[in-house]
Protein backbone atom coordinates (compact mmCIF):
# COMPACT_ATOMS: atom_id res chain seq x y z
CA UNK A 1 0.00 0.00 0.00
CA UNK A 2 1.68 3.28 1.16
CA UNK A 3 0.30 6.79 1.10
CA UNK A 4 1.65 9.88 -0.60
CA UNK A 5 0.87 13.51 0.02
CA UNK A 6 2.17 16.63 -1.67
CA UNK A 7 1.45 20.31 -1.36
CA UNK A 8 2.83 22.95 -3.70
CA UNK A 9 1.92 26.47 -2.66
CA UNK A 10 1.28 29.14 -5.30
CA UNK A 11 0.08 31.93 -3.01
CA UNK A 12 2.86 33.12 -0.60
CA UNK A 13 0.17 33.98 1.96
CA UNK A 14 -0.26 30.25 2.53
CA UNK A 15 3.48 29.50 3.06
CA UNK A 16 3.33 29.75 6.88
CA UNK A 17 0.63 27.04 6.79
CA UNK A 18 2.67 24.53 4.76
CA UNK A 19 3.80 22.41 7.70
CA UNK A 20 0.48 22.37 9.47
CA UNK A 21 -1.42 21.35 6.33
CA UNK A 22 1.17 18.72 5.37
CA UNK A 23 1.17 17.22 8.88
CA UNK A 24 -2.57 16.78 8.71
CA UNK A 25 -2.43 15.24 5.23
CA UNK A 26 0.29 12.85 6.39
CA UNK A 27 -1.70 11.75 9.43
CA UNK A 28 -4.75 11.04 7.25
CA UNK A 29 -2.61 8.53 5.34
CA UNK A 30 -1.87 6.46 8.47
CA UNK A 31 -4.17 3.62 7.34
CA UNK A 32 -2.20 3.31 4.11
CA UNK A 33 1.20 3.35 5.82
CA UNK A 34 1.63 2.88 9.58
CA UNK A 35 5.23 1.53 9.45
CA UNK A 36 7.23 4.67 8.85
CA UNK A 37 6.77 8.20 7.61
CA UNK A 38 8.88 10.89 6.07
CA UNK A 39 8.65 14.24 4.42
CA UNK A 40 10.66 16.83 2.56
CA UNK A 41 10.07 20.52 3.15
CA UNK A 42 11.34 23.27 0.88
CA UNK A 43 11.90 26.23 3.18
CA UNK A 44 14.09 29.32 3.13
CA UNK A 45 17.58 29.25 1.67
CA UNK A 46 20.61 31.55 1.90
CA UNK A 47 22.81 32.36 -1.11
CA UNK A 48 26.14 30.57 -0.99
CA UNK A 49 24.98 28.26 1.80
CA UNK A 50 24.11 24.58 1.50
CA UNK A 51 21.69 22.87 3.85
CA UNK A 52 22.51 19.27 4.68
CA UNK A 53 20.02 17.13 6.56
CA UNK A 54 21.75 14.59 8.80
CA UNK A 55 20.23 11.65 10.58
CA UNK A 56 21.84 10.23 13.70
CA UNK A 57 21.13 6.98 15.51
CA UNK A 58 19.53 8.94 18.36
CA UNK A 59 18.82 12.54 19.38
CA UNK A 60 21.80 12.81 21.78
CA UNK A 61 24.13 11.25 19.18
CA UNK A 62 23.24 13.79 16.52
CA UNK A 63 23.65 16.60 19.04
CA UNK A 64 27.22 15.50 19.72
CA UNK A 65 27.95 15.18 16.01
CA UNK A 66 26.60 18.68 15.36
CA UNK A 67 28.79 20.20 18.11
CA UNK A 68 31.81 18.55 16.51
CA UNK A 69 30.79 19.81 13.04
CA UNK A 70 30.45 23.37 14.36
CA UNK A 71 34.02 23.31 15.65
CA UNK A 72 35.43 21.57 12.56
CA UNK A 73 33.67 23.93 10.13
CA UNK A 74 33.68 27.48 11.57
CA UNK A 75 30.59 29.37 10.40
CA UNK A 76 28.43 26.24 10.19
CA UNK A 77 25.11 26.48 11.96
CA UNK A 78 22.68 23.72 12.80
CA UNK A 79 19.07 23.25 13.83
CA UNK A 80 18.27 20.06 15.72
CA UNK A 81 15.03 18.14 15.13
CA UNK A 82 14.97 14.97 17.24
CA UNK A 83 17.23 12.42 15.48
CA UNK A 84 17.86 14.81 12.59
CA UNK A 85 19.83 18.01 12.22
CA UNK A 86 19.87 20.53 9.40
CA UNK A 87 23.39 21.90 9.06
CA UNK A 88 23.92 25.08 7.02
CA UNK A 89 27.42 25.72 5.81
CA UNK A 90 29.26 27.33 2.94
CA UNK A 91 28.97 25.38 -0.27
CA UNK A 92 32.74 24.75 -0.17
CA UNK A 93 32.60 23.24 3.31
CA UNK A 94 29.48 21.30 2.35
CA UNK A 95 31.44 19.35 -0.24
CA UNK A 96 33.84 18.14 2.49
CA UNK A 97 31.22 17.22 5.08
CA UNK A 98 30.65 13.73 3.64
CA UNK A 99 34.34 12.81 4.03
CA UNK A 100 34.47 14.38 7.48
CA UNK A 101 31.47 12.32 8.61
CA UNK A 102 32.93 9.10 7.20
CA UNK A 103 35.98 9.66 9.35
CA UNK A 104 34.51 11.20 12.50
CA UNK A 105 30.90 10.03 12.73
CA UNK A 106 30.38 7.09 10.38
CA UNK A 107 26.99 6.20 11.85
CA UNK A 108 25.55 9.57 10.82
CA UNK A 109 23.72 9.52 7.48
CA UNK A 110 23.28 12.35 5.01
CA UNK A 111 19.58 12.25 4.15
CA UNK A 112 19.52 15.12 1.71
CA UNK A 113 21.32 18.24 0.62
CA UNK A 114 20.44 21.36 -1.27
CA UNK A 115 19.88 25.05 -0.89
CA UNK A 116 16.31 24.74 0.41
CA UNK A 117 15.35 21.09 0.89
CA UNK A 118 15.18 19.42 4.31
CA UNK A 119 14.27 15.72 4.62
CA UNK A 120 13.02 13.95 7.74
CA UNK A 121 12.04 10.30 8.13
CA UNK A 122 11.63 7.77 10.90
CA UNK A 123 9.93 4.53 11.78
CA UNK A 124 6.60 4.97 13.56
CA UNK A 125 3.08 6.26 13.09
CA UNK A 126 2.89 9.30 10.80
CA UNK A 127 1.42 11.57 13.50
CA UNK A 128 4.26 10.65 15.90
CA UNK A 129 6.93 11.13 13.25
CA UNK A 130 5.48 14.52 12.24
CA UNK A 131 5.31 15.71 15.84
CA UNK A 132 8.84 14.49 16.74
CA UNK A 133 10.24 16.67 13.97
CA UNK A 134 7.84 19.59 14.53
CA UNK A 135 6.45 19.47 10.99
CA UNK A 136 3.36 21.50 11.91
CA UNK A 137 5.45 24.61 12.59
CA UNK A 138 7.55 24.41 9.43
CA UNK A 139 6.96 26.86 6.61
CA UNK A 140 7.96 26.85 2.98
CA UNK A 141 6.85 26.70 -0.62
CA UNK A 142 6.25 22.99 -1.05
CA UNK A 143 6.42 19.68 0.73
CA UNK A 144 6.04 16.02 -0.14
CA UNK A 145 5.41 13.25 2.31
CA UNK A 146 5.06 9.51 2.48
CA UNK A 147 3.59 6.92 4.83
CA UNK A 148 4.96 3.44 4.30
CA UNK A 149 3.46 -0.02 4.50
CA UNK A 150 6.56 -2.10 3.81
CA UNK A 151 6.46 -4.69 1.03
CA UNK A 152 9.80 -4.94 -0.79
CA UNK A 153 12.18 -4.41 2.14
CA UNK A 154 12.28 -4.22 5.93
CA UNK A 155 10.66 -1.65 8.24
CA UNK A 156 13.68 0.52 8.94
CA UNK A 157 14.41 4.21 8.76
CA UNK A 158 16.60 3.44 5.76
CA UNK A 159 13.53 2.02 4.07
CA UNK A 160 11.48 5.14 4.77
CA UNK A 161 10.85 7.72 2.06
CA UNK A 162 11.59 10.34 0.71
CA UNK A 163 14.79 9.39 -1.07
CA UNK A 164 17.00 12.17 -2.27
CA UNK A 165 17.86 12.03 -5.94
CA UNK A 166 20.30 14.94 -5.98
CA UNK A 167 20.67 18.51 -4.77
CA UNK A 168 17.26 19.76 -3.69
CA UNK A 169 15.63 16.75 -5.31
CA UNK A 170 13.71 13.93 -3.71
CA UNK A 171 11.22 11.23 -4.52
CA UNK A 172 8.41 9.36 -2.81
CA UNK A 173 6.84 6.22 -4.23
CA UNK A 174 3.68 4.20 -3.85
CA UNK A 175 3.96 0.80 -5.46
CA UNK A 176 6.64 -1.79 -6.05
CA UNK A 177 9.24 -2.17 -8.75
CA UNK A 178 9.88 -5.65 -10.12
CA UNK A 179 13.20 -5.00 -11.85
CA UNK A 180 14.94 -3.11 -9.05
CA UNK A 181 17.63 -5.76 -8.45
CA UNK A 182 18.75 -5.76 -12.04
CA UNK A 183 18.52 -2.01 -12.34
CA UNK A 184 20.57 -1.58 -9.14
CA UNK A 185 23.37 -3.68 -10.69
CA UNK A 186 23.28 -1.60 -13.86
CA UNK A 187 23.33 1.67 -11.92
CA UNK A 188 26.15 0.53 -9.62
CA UNK A 189 28.26 -0.02 -12.73
CA UNK A 190 27.45 3.59 -13.64
CA UNK A 191 28.80 4.69 -10.27
CA UNK A 192 25.53 5.28 -8.43
CA UNK A 193 25.79 4.28 -4.75
CA UNK A 194 22.98 2.49 -2.89
CA UNK A 195 22.59 2.23 0.87
CA UNK A 196 19.64 -0.17 1.05
CA UNK A 197 17.83 -3.03 -0.69
CA UNK A 198 14.85 -0.75 -1.20
CA UNK A 199 13.20 -0.50 -4.63
CA UNK A 200 12.40 3.20 -4.32
CA UNK A 201 16.03 4.04 -3.73
CA UNK A 202 16.71 2.42 -7.11
CA UNK A 203 14.11 4.66 -8.77
CA UNK A 204 15.73 7.66 -7.09
CA UNK A 205 19.17 6.50 -8.20
CA UNK A 206 17.88 5.95 -11.72
CA UNK A 207 16.59 9.52 -11.95
CA UNK A 208 19.86 10.87 -10.47
CA UNK A 209 21.81 8.94 -13.12
CA UNK A 210 19.64 10.15 -15.99
CA UNK A 211 19.97 13.76 -14.81
CA UNK A 212 23.72 13.34 -14.28
CA UNK A 213 23.84 12.30 -17.95
CA UNK A 214 22.18 15.56 -18.89
CA UNK A 215 18.44 14.90 -18.92
CA UNK A 216 15.89 17.22 -17.36
CA UNK A 217 13.76 15.74 -14.57
CA UNK A 218 10.76 15.67 -16.93
CA UNK A 219 12.72 13.74 -19.58
CA UNK A 220 14.16 11.39 -16.96
CA UNK A 221 10.65 10.56 -15.75
CA UNK A 222 9.52 10.08 -19.34
CA UNK A 223 12.22 7.48 -20.17
CA UNK A 224 11.63 5.93 -16.73
CA UNK A 225 8.29 4.76 -18.08
CA UNK A 226 10.22 2.28 -20.24
CA UNK A 227 13.01 1.36 -17.84
CA UNK A 228 11.13 1.02 -14.55
CA UNK A 229 9.04 -2.14 -14.51
CA UNK A 230 6.33 -2.38 -11.89
CA UNK A 231 3.64 -0.37 -10.19
CA UNK A 232 4.33 3.17 -9.22
CA UNK A 233 2.98 6.55 -8.48
CA UNK A 234 5.92 8.90 -7.98
CA UNK A 235 5.84 12.39 -6.55
CA UNK A 236 9.10 14.30 -6.93
CA UNK A 237 10.24 17.56 -5.40
CA UNK A 238 12.80 19.93 -6.89
CA UNK A 239 14.08 23.29 -5.66
CA UNK A 240 11.27 25.15 -7.40
CA UNK A 241 8.91 22.44 -8.50
CA UNK A 242 6.80 19.44 -7.89
CA UNK A 243 6.10 16.57 -10.31
CA UNK A 244 3.83 13.53 -10.54
CA UNK A 245 4.07 10.35 -12.63
CA UNK A 246 1.93 7.19 -12.62
CA UNK A 247 2.72 3.91 -14.37
CA UNK A 248 1.04 3.04 -17.65
CA UNK A 249 -1.87 1.16 -16.13
CA UNK A 250 -2.32 3.54 -13.18
CA UNK A 251 -2.21 0.70 -10.71
CA UNK A 252 -1.82 2.91 -7.64
CA UNK A 253 -4.35 5.56 -6.70
CA UNK A 254 -3.74 9.27 -7.14
CA UNK A 255 -5.88 12.35 -6.91
CA UNK A 256 -4.99 16.00 -7.30
CA UNK A 257 -6.56 19.36 -6.54
CA UNK A 258 -5.66 22.80 -7.80
CA UNK A 259 -6.83 26.24 -6.70
CA UNK A 260 -5.31 29.72 -7.11
CA UNK A 261 -3.48 29.07 -3.85
CA UNK A 262 -2.00 25.59 -4.27
CA UNK A 263 -1.62 22.29 -6.13
CA UNK A 264 -2.13 19.29 -3.87
CA UNK A 265 -1.60 15.56 -4.29
CA UNK A 266 -3.03 12.69 -2.29
CA UNK A 267 -3.28 8.92 -2.60
CA UNK A 268 -6.92 9.36 -1.65
CA UNK A 269 -9.38 12.24 -1.61
CA UNK A 270 -9.47 12.16 2.21
CA UNK A 271 -6.03 13.75 2.18
CA UNK A 272 -7.38 16.79 0.37
CA UNK A 273 -10.66 17.08 2.28
CA UNK A 274 -9.36 19.58 4.87
CA UNK A 275 -7.47 21.90 2.54
CA UNK A 276 -8.70 25.49 2.33
CA UNK A 277 -11.14 26.11 -0.53
CA UNK A 278 -11.25 22.42 -1.53
CA UNK A 279 -14.96 22.75 -2.31
CA UNK A 280 -14.13 25.08 -5.19
CA UNK A 281 -10.90 23.34 -6.28
CA UNK A 282 -10.45 21.56 -9.60
CA UNK A 283 -10.12 17.94 -8.53
CA UNK A 284 -8.92 15.25 -10.94
CA UNK A 285 -7.04 11.99 -11.26
CA UNK A 286 -3.70 12.29 -13.05
CA UNK A 287 -3.60 10.30 -16.30
CA UNK A 288 -1.41 7.20 -16.51
CA UNK A 289 2.05 7.49 -18.11
CA UNK A 290 1.81 11.27 -18.14
CA UNK A 291 4.37 13.57 -16.53
CA UNK A 292 2.85 16.45 -14.57
CA UNK A 293 5.08 19.26 -13.36
CA UNK A 294 4.52 22.57 -11.58
CA UNK A 295 7.15 25.22 -11.03
CA UNK A 296 7.32 28.66 -9.46
Amino acid sequence: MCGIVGLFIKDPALEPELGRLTARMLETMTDRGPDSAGFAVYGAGTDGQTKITLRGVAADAIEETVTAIESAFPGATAVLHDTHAVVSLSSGDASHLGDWLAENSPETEIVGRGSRMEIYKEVGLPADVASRFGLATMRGTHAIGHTRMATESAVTTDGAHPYSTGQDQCLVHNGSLSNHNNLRRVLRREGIAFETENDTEVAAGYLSWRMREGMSLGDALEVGLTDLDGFYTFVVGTENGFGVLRDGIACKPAIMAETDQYVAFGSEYRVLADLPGIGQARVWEPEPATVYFWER
Partner: protein
Amino acid sequence: MPEVDLGITPLRELNGTLHNLPADTNETHWIVDNPAGRHAIAAGLDAPLKVEINGPVGYYCAGMNKLATVQVHGSAGVGVAENMMSGFVHVSGDASQAAGATGRGGLLRVDGNASSRCGISMKGIDIVVKGSVGHMSAFMAQAGNLIVFGDAGDALGDSIYEARLFVRGNVKSLGADCIEKAMRDEHKAAVHDILTRAGINGQIDPSEFKRYGSARKLYNFNVDNAGAY
Protein backbone atom coordinates in the same frame (compact mmCIF):
# COMPACT_ATOMS: atom_id res chain seq x y z
CA MET B 1 -36.11 12.59 7.38
CA PRO B 2 -33.00 11.65 9.42
CA GLU B 3 -29.88 13.71 8.74
CA VAL B 4 -26.47 12.38 9.78
CA ASP B 5 -23.31 14.50 10.02
CA LEU B 6 -20.29 12.24 9.56
CA GLY B 7 -18.14 14.90 11.20
CA ILE B 8 -19.99 13.95 14.41
CA THR B 9 -21.49 10.48 13.96
CA PRO B 10 -18.98 7.65 13.39
CA LEU B 11 -19.32 6.00 9.98
CA ARG B 12 -19.77 2.53 11.48
CA GLU B 13 -22.71 3.83 13.47
CA LEU B 14 -24.38 5.22 10.32
CA ASN B 15 -23.84 2.02 8.33
CA GLY B 16 -24.96 -0.12 11.28
CA THR B 17 -28.14 1.93 11.64
CA LEU B 18 -28.92 1.65 7.93
CA HIS B 19 -28.30 -2.12 7.97
CA ASN B 20 -30.54 -2.68 10.98
CA LEU B 21 -33.61 -0.72 9.90
CA PRO B 22 -36.72 -2.93 10.16
CA ALA B 23 -38.37 -3.89 6.87
CA ASP B 24 -41.46 -1.74 7.63
CA THR B 25 -39.50 1.37 8.66
CA ASN B 26 -40.94 4.76 7.85
CA GLU B 27 -37.44 6.27 7.86
CA THR B 28 -36.73 5.53 4.22
CA HIS B 29 -35.03 8.79 3.22
CA TRP B 30 -31.66 9.62 4.78
CA ILE B 31 -29.37 12.60 4.34
CA VAL B 32 -25.65 12.23 5.01
CA ASP B 33 -23.52 15.38 5.39
CA ASN B 34 -19.78 15.92 5.58
CA PRO B 35 -18.63 12.63 4.01
CA ALA B 36 -15.09 14.09 3.41
CA GLY B 37 -14.04 11.18 1.23
CA ARG B 38 -14.62 8.50 3.89
CA HIS B 39 -14.66 4.91 2.65
CA ALA B 40 -17.57 2.45 2.43
CA ILE B 41 -20.32 4.97 3.09
CA ALA B 42 -23.75 3.33 2.67
CA ALA B 43 -22.15 0.04 1.65
CA GLY B 44 -24.12 -3.17 2.03
CA LEU B 45 -27.63 -1.69 2.01
CA ASP B 46 -30.37 -4.24 1.39
CA ALA B 47 -33.65 -2.33 1.72
CA PRO B 48 -35.53 0.12 -0.53
CA LEU B 49 -34.07 3.21 1.17
CA LYS B 50 -33.01 6.48 -0.37
CA VAL B 51 -29.68 7.79 0.91
CA GLU B 52 -28.46 11.20 -0.23
CA ILE B 53 -24.82 12.05 0.46
CA ASN B 54 -23.82 15.70 0.29
CA GLY B 55 -20.18 15.79 -0.76
CA PRO B 56 -17.39 13.58 -2.07
CA VAL B 57 -17.15 9.95 -0.95
CA GLY B 58 -14.16 7.58 -0.77
CA TYR B 59 -13.81 3.95 -1.77
CA TYR B 60 -16.63 1.41 -2.21
CA CYS B 61 -19.54 3.78 -1.62
CA ALA B 62 -22.82 1.87 -2.04
CA GLY B 63 -20.86 -1.34 -2.57
CA MET B 64 -22.98 -4.53 -2.69
CA ASN B 65 -26.06 -2.33 -2.91
CA LYS B 66 -29.41 -4.12 -3.01
CA LEU B 67 -32.74 -2.31 -3.59
CA ALA B 68 -31.54 1.06 -2.25
CA THR B 69 -31.15 4.34 -4.11
CA VAL B 70 -27.90 6.11 -3.23
CA GLN B 71 -27.35 9.62 -4.52
CA VAL B 72 -23.88 11.14 -4.21
CA HIS B 73 -23.85 14.92 -4.62
CA GLY B 74 -20.14 15.02 -5.36
CA SER B 75 -17.45 12.71 -6.67
CA ALA B 76 -16.81 9.09 -5.73
CA GLY B 77 -13.58 7.20 -5.04
CA VAL B 78 -12.53 3.74 -6.19
CA GLY B 79 -15.19 1.05 -6.63
CA VAL B 80 -18.42 3.00 -6.29
CA ALA B 81 -21.37 0.55 -6.41
CA GLU B 82 -18.96 -2.38 -6.76
CA ASN B 83 -20.78 -5.69 -6.78
CA MET B 84 -24.18 -3.96 -6.81
CA MET B 85 -27.06 -6.45 -6.92
CA SER B 86 -30.01 -4.11 -7.60
CA GLY B 87 -31.14 -0.54 -6.95
CA PHE B 88 -29.84 2.76 -8.28
CA VAL B 89 -26.62 4.63 -7.54
CA HIS B 90 -26.20 8.13 -8.94
CA VAL B 91 -22.94 10.12 -8.74
CA SER B 92 -23.28 13.75 -9.77
CA GLY B 93 -19.51 14.29 -10.08
CA ASP B 94 -16.71 12.03 -11.32
CA ALA B 95 -16.08 8.43 -10.34
CA SER B 96 -12.64 6.96 -9.74
CA GLN B 97 -11.37 3.56 -10.90
CA ALA B 98 -13.46 0.40 -11.09
CA ALA B 99 -16.88 2.07 -10.89
CA GLY B 100 -19.57 -0.62 -10.87
CA ALA B 101 -16.96 -3.41 -10.77
CA THR B 102 -18.41 -6.94 -10.78
CA GLY B 103 -21.96 -5.54 -10.46
CA ARG B 104 -24.68 -8.13 -10.93
CA GLY B 105 -27.69 -5.86 -11.34
CA GLY B 106 -29.12 -2.42 -10.74
CA LEU B 107 -28.16 0.83 -12.41
CA LEU B 108 -25.15 3.09 -11.86
CA ARG B 109 -25.25 6.59 -13.32
CA VAL B 110 -22.19 8.86 -13.29
CA ASP B 111 -22.74 12.41 -14.51
CA GLY B 112 -19.02 13.25 -14.82
CA ASN B 113 -16.19 11.01 -16.01
CA ALA B 114 -15.35 7.56 -14.72
CA SER B 115 -11.67 6.66 -14.71
CA SER B 116 -9.95 3.39 -15.58
CA ARG B 117 -11.52 -0.07 -15.33
CA CYS B 118 -15.11 1.19 -15.22
CA GLY B 119 -17.39 -1.87 -15.23
CA ILE B 120 -14.51 -4.34 -14.84
CA SER B 121 -15.93 -7.88 -14.69
CA MET B 122 -19.50 -6.54 -14.78
CA LYS B 123 -22.03 -9.35 -14.50
CA GLY B 124 -25.42 -7.81 -15.26
CA ILE B 125 -25.25 -4.23 -13.98
CA ASP B 126 -26.18 -1.33 -16.26
CA ILE B 127 -23.78 1.62 -16.15
CA VAL B 128 -24.38 5.05 -17.72
CA VAL B 129 -21.47 7.51 -17.79
CA LYS B 130 -22.32 10.96 -19.15
CA GLY B 131 -18.63 11.85 -19.51
CA SER B 132 -15.81 9.57 -20.62
CA VAL B 133 -14.35 6.35 -19.24
CA GLY B 134 -10.66 5.52 -18.75
CA HIS B 135 -8.50 2.64 -19.96
CA MET B 136 -9.39 -1.04 -19.52
CA SER B 137 -13.07 -0.30 -19.02
CA ALA B 138 -15.37 -3.35 -19.18
CA PHE B 139 -12.34 -5.64 -18.83
CA MET B 140 -13.66 -9.25 -18.78
CA ALA B 141 -17.21 -7.89 -18.74
CA GLN B 142 -19.67 -10.77 -18.65
CA ALA B 143 -23.19 -9.33 -18.81
CA GLY B 144 -25.01 -6.02 -18.58
CA ASN B 145 -24.69 -2.75 -20.46
CA LEU B 146 -22.14 0.06 -20.35
CA ILE B 147 -23.28 3.31 -21.98
CA VAL B 148 -20.74 6.10 -22.42
CA PHE B 149 -21.73 9.53 -23.73
CA GLY B 150 -18.09 10.63 -24.20
CA ASP B 151 -14.94 8.70 -25.12
CA ALA B 152 -13.40 5.43 -23.97
CA GLY B 153 -9.69 4.97 -23.18
CA ASP B 154 -7.31 2.21 -24.24
CA ALA B 155 -8.26 -1.48 -24.39
CA LEU B 156 -12.03 -1.12 -24.10
CA GLY B 157 -13.71 -4.45 -23.40
CA ASP B 158 -10.53 -6.50 -23.20
CA SER B 159 -11.36 -10.23 -22.95
CA ILE B 160 -15.07 -9.41 -22.92
CA TYR B 161 -17.75 -12.12 -22.67
CA GLU B 162 -21.34 -11.08 -23.36
CA ALA B 163 -21.77 -7.54 -22.01
CA ARG B 164 -22.85 -4.82 -24.44
CA LEU B 165 -20.83 -1.61 -24.66
CA PHE B 166 -22.29 1.56 -26.22
CA VAL B 167 -19.92 4.49 -26.78
CA ARG B 168 -20.94 7.76 -28.45
CA GLY B 169 -17.46 9.31 -28.72
CA ASN B 170 -14.09 7.92 -29.73
CA VAL B 171 -12.65 4.65 -28.54
CA LYS B 172 -8.90 4.99 -28.16
CA SER B 173 -8.39 1.27 -28.71
CA LEU B 174 -10.30 -1.98 -28.36
CA GLY B 175 -9.02 -4.75 -26.12
CA ALA B 176 -8.46 -8.38 -27.11
CA ASP B 177 -11.55 -10.02 -28.61
CA CYS B 178 -13.65 -6.83 -28.49
CA ILE B 179 -15.09 -5.65 -31.81
CA GLU B 180 -17.55 -3.11 -33.13
CA LYS B 181 -20.95 -4.58 -33.93
CA ALA B 182 -24.05 -3.36 -35.76
CA MET B 183 -26.36 -1.06 -33.79
CA ARG B 184 -29.71 -2.66 -34.54
CA ASP B 185 -33.16 -1.50 -33.45
CA GLU B 186 -33.20 -3.86 -30.47
CA HIS B 187 -29.99 -2.21 -29.21
CA LYS B 188 -31.39 1.29 -29.66
CA ALA B 189 -34.44 0.15 -27.69
CA ALA B 190 -32.20 -1.23 -24.95
CA VAL B 191 -30.26 2.05 -24.71
CA HIS B 192 -33.54 3.98 -24.68
CA ASP B 193 -34.85 1.83 -21.86
CA ILE B 194 -31.72 2.22 -19.72
CA LEU B 195 -31.55 5.99 -20.25
CA THR B 196 -35.21 6.21 -19.28
CA ARG B 197 -34.52 4.32 -16.07
CA ALA B 198 -31.50 6.55 -15.43
CA GLY B 199 -33.78 9.61 -15.74
CA ILE B 200 -31.90 11.04 -18.72
CA ASN B 201 -33.97 9.99 -21.67
CA GLY B 202 -34.38 12.55 -24.43
CA GLN B 203 -30.91 14.07 -24.02
CA ILE B 204 -29.16 11.80 -26.51
CA ASP B 205 -30.49 9.94 -29.53
CA PRO B 206 -29.66 6.21 -29.04
CA SER B 207 -28.66 5.94 -32.69
CA GLU B 208 -25.62 8.15 -31.97
CA PHE B 209 -23.94 5.31 -30.08
CA LYS B 210 -21.72 2.63 -31.56
CA ARG B 211 -21.99 -0.85 -30.13
CA TYR B 212 -19.04 -3.03 -29.11
CA GLY B 213 -19.04 -6.58 -27.91
CA SER B 214 -17.28 -9.91 -27.93
CA ALA B 215 -15.89 -11.54 -31.09
CA ARG B 216 -16.20 -14.80 -29.07
CA LYS B 217 -12.78 -16.00 -30.19
CA LEU B 218 -11.44 -16.44 -26.67
CA TYR B 219 -14.25 -18.65 -25.41
CA ASN B 220 -12.58 -21.94 -26.14
CA PHE B 221 -9.03 -23.08 -26.38
CA ASN B 222 -7.91 -23.02 -29.98
CA VAL B 223 -5.57 -25.87 -30.75
CA ASP B 224 -3.84 -23.75 -33.41
CA ASN B 225 -2.46 -21.65 -30.55
CA ALA B 226 -0.98 -24.61 -28.68
CA GLY B 227 2.51 -23.64 -29.78
CA ALA B 228 2.19 -20.31 -28.05
CA TYR B 229 2.03 -21.85 -24.57
